């Protein structure tokens, strides 16, 4: 080739190269060696590395100016930050900085979800989520909560926290998720912190069970009997020996009306808390322990996420000394212990969401107590990455946001849609010196509705429920909230409730604080989301919102046996109980199978023989646990499926397992209307076993662990961000809780035992959201095995960041 022609060709190739570089400059800038954005945080990911140690030795820790005063951050060998500051504001500022350092993408994702801004970053698939969250207007509710906070220290702490988050964003490169997604987060605001609180509360109490049940009643004849006021078990949280009765005395309970709200329920169901979200906790008096100090144990069963739902931290200032876990986005410990008092939470399952229908004068006006009112309405634009922007109508009535799907319209009153003061309450918990301080703090713990257990070093213990409990009236008679109310008639309103405003929780619209169920200084109290008490002083919830009670029964059984044995309830007893895989559900349901032998083939009988010999433990290496777990699924489906699915109701509408367990053997619900025979419980149990054995064959399962697998994926679709998959013990109804059959799996999102020697805990994953950090998933093995690490009760690890007061 002639040189001139070769040069021309080279110029052409160079042009192609340059063009390619322009097109691919984003990905190249992401992954390039040294300067790649994806590796930008590699140098700070591992504080224990030789490079980091030498760097600190040479130049000292990273220094950051703080407008609030001095603070230091140590990271211990599990990546837990120990933050020490000269005052609480400097503390909150440092917490904001380190949470952003470790979890900034998670912070932003939570905020985008609740503000309805996911599609702007992640595309058209998020439009419906954004539509729902904007229509509920959670952002306005967070603004209302900001207005409701009167305590100056709390406000100052939240503001300092937001400043700390923003300082990190100003100082440091963004985490890899932002780089890959190609967007930058907005500034963090105090309202964003309160929005995280709304997210948590919604995830625990945002249930549309009223319209769900009305729909089932409408579509399935006689289904009202499947939703009793109380599930048939004898182990409420507060055990007082009262027999199960048909109604609660304190409220009128006419049967809820039938109505088909299927279209609305199908639309909102993806954003409801998944059924079965729950937790375990117990408090044990010092009289039951060796050293005379009470014990608090807690393992909240929330969605298992990457990175974890919780962020562990240890905070110290002249006013504060607390350790435990926070939701990322909050400057305070939510579950944990001060030097003097420990506390933990489980969900009550209270009914704090009501729905209202109206007589409509026209599309925009509805009748309300003899007048006509116009729907408040505004149009918002949902920005969509990679797609056309969409609009959404945000509408509100006197009761709250108006949801409309396929011509059905309901207004929603949810406790969290008003100004709530839980930020103040949790701030006070972080400064509590006694159980009495805890109780006092709970006066402003408006939401979520939780069972709290607490104990202090003086030996005082406490159980009570938190939150506000609406009192509904219809024609001046107090009624339960388990129905859709006539909004035009003003039925079922919560007096003093101001959606998106400041409510009067001390008025007649809410139960009085002093009436709440409470137990002081009992030998022990255990909570596992079962009903609170047989005789609540006011309406809390119907059976559908409580857990089946299997976990509660098992915990009380173990506590009772230990107490009767006279052996002290030491730390190992509590951690062992948190890891208990014995299934009370298996104990209750297996007679359904063994009683069906006559209907079975020899192969099925052999399987039943194995189940009878089984120890009822849902262990990963158990073959019988596999058969039972899949059989229960099949049994549930074979019983309810023919009548529910035929009416367009999937398994999310099925009644509770406790209801299935207690159906009489000849109940009509066992009869499959598609066959000419009249099936009984034995027929359905045998049929379900047949399907189970076929399924196991088809899937090639050998043990429970082949089915029951931990599979935690980061919301961002990059496989290296996911946690390593593994076989798991546990089931939805065991104390060692794990639910594999969810799009987002559920289990113990944190485990904690606090006793006289400090405490232990475990986290499903790691502290850091930085995938280059050794603490990204270093605690997963310990957690999955049911083991624990020490909780930080003293400052540990080298100083990594030093905050210096501005001159």
């Amino acid at each position, binding site marked *: 080739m002639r*040189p001139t022609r*070769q*040069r021309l*060709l*080279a*110029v052409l*190739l*160079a042009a192609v*190269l340059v063009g390619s*570089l322009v097109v691919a400059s984003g*990905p*190249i*800038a*992401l*992954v*390039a*060696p*040294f*300067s*790649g954005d*994806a*590796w930008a945080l*590699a*140098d700070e*990911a*591992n504080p*224990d*590395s*030789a*490079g*980091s140690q030498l760097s600190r030795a040479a130049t000292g820790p990273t220094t950051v100016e703080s407008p609030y005063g001095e603070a230091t951050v140590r990271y211990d060998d599990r990546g837990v930050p120990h933050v020490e500051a000269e005052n609480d504001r400097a503390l909150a500022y440092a917490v904001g900085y380190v949470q952003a350092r470790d979890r900034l993408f998670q912070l932003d994702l939570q905020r985008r979800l609740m503000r309805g801004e996911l599609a702007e970053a992640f595309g058209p698939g998020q439009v419906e989520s954004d539509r729902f969250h904007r229509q509920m207007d959670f952002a306005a509710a967070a603004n209302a909560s900001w207005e409701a906070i009167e305590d100056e220290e709390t406000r100052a702490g939240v503001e300092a926290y937001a400043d700390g988050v923003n300082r990190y964003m100003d100082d440091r490169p963004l985490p*890899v998720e932002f780089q890959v997604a190609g967007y930058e987060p907005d500034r963090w605001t105090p309202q964003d912190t309160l929005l995280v609180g709304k997210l948590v509360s919604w995830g625990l109490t945002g249930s549309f069970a009223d319209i769900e049940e009305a729909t089932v009643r409408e579509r399935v004849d006689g289904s009202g009997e499947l939703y009793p006021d109380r599930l048939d078990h004898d182990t409420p949280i507060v055990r007082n020996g009262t027999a199960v009765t048909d109604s609660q005395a304190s409220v009128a309970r006419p049967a809820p009306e039938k109505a088909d709200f299927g279209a609305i329920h199908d639309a909102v169901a993806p954003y409801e808390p998944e059924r079965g979200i729950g937790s375990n906790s117990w408090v044990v008096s010092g009289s039951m322990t060796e050293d005379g100090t009470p014990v608090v144990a807690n393992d909240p069963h929330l969605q298992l996420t990457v990175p974890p739902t919780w962020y562990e931290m240890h905070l110290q200032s002249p006013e504060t000394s607390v350790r435990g876990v926070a939701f990322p986005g909050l400057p305070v410990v939510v579950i944990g212990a001060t030097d003097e008092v420990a506390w933990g939470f489980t969900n009550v399952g209270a009914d704090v969401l009501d729905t209202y229908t109206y007589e409509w004068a026209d599309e925009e006006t509805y009748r309300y107590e003899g007048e006509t009112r116009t729907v408040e309405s505004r149009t918002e634009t949902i920005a969509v990455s990679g797609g056309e922007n969409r609009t959404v109508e945000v509408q509100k009535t006197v009761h709250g946001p108006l949801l409309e799907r396929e011509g059905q319209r309901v207004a929603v009153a949810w406790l969290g849609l008003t100004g709530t003061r839980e930020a103040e309450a949790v701030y006070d918990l972080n400064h509590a010196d006694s159980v009495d301080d805890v109780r006092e703090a709970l006066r402003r713990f408006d939401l979520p509705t939780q069972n709290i257990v607490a104990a202090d070093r003086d030996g005082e213990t406490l159980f009570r429920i938190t939150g506000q409990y609406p009192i509904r009236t219809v024609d001046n008679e107090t009624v339960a909230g388990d129905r859709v109310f006539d909004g035009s008639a003003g039925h079922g309103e919560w007096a003093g409730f101001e959606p998106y405003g400041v409510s009067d929780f001390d008025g007649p619209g809410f139960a009085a604080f002093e009436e709440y169920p409470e137990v002081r200084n009992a030998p022990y109290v255990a909570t596992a989301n079962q009903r609170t008490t047989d005789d609540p002083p006011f309406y809390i919830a119907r059976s559908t919102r409580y857990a089946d009670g299997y976990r509660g029964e098992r915990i009380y059984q173990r506590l009772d046996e230990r107490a009767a044995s006279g052996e002290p309830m030491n730390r190992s007893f509590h951690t062992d109980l948190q890891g208990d895989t014995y299934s009370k559900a298996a104990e209750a349901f297996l007679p359904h199978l063994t009683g069906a032998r006559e209907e079975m083939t020899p192969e099925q009988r052999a399987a039943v023989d194995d189940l009878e010999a089984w120890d009822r433990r849902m262990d990963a290496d158990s073959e019988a646990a596999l058969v039972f777990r899949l059989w229960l699924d099949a049994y549930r489906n074979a019983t309810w499926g023919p009548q529910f699915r035929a009416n367009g109701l999937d398994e999310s509408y099925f009644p509770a397992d406790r209801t299935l367990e207690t159906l009489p053997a000849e109940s009509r619900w066992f009869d499959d209307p598609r066959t000419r025979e009249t099936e009984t419980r034995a027929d359905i149990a045998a049929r379900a076993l047949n399907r189970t054995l076929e399924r196991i064959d088809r899937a090639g399962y050998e043990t429970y662990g082949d089915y029951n697998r931990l599979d935690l994926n980061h919301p961002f679709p*990059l*496989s*290296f961000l996911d946690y390593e998959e593994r076989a798991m013990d546990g089931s939805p109804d065991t104390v060692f809780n794990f639910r594999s059959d969810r799009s987002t799996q559920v289990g113990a999102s944190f485990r904690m035992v606090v006793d006289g020697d400090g405490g232990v805990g475990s986290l499903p994953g790691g502290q850091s959201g930085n*995938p*280059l*950090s*050794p603490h*990204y998933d270093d605690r997963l093995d310990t957690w999955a095995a049911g083991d624990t690490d020490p909780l930080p009760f003293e400052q540990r690890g080298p100083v990594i960041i030093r905050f210096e007061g501005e001159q």
Partner: protein
Amino acid sequence: MSAAERLRGVREGPRAEAAILVVFVVGVLASVVHWAGLILAGALLGLVAVSTGRAFVLGVYFGAFVLVAYGVVLAWYGTLGAVTTAFPLSLGLLAVSVVLPTAAATIVRFGTRLDTEG
């Protein structure tokens, strides 16, 4: 002395290997600042390489050199394992490190063939 003669002097003279070494060092330093340093290094290697085939090989060597240098830095900060397993980003890191300098070196050498070369 013409530019072509100077270039030939660098490519074929006694300091050819030293020139390559200098380019390696300068290239790594430039890559630390910006990924365009990989292109710059490749282009310089193309200028000093004795042939197009040699330029290609030097580009690959430089990519490997950058990867080793970066690997040492990551190991120093205790994140080599995490970066290596960050698939597919780590694959991108590998590809960018090798392809950019190799392509640049090859194209530049191809386009700077001297008239006196056969």
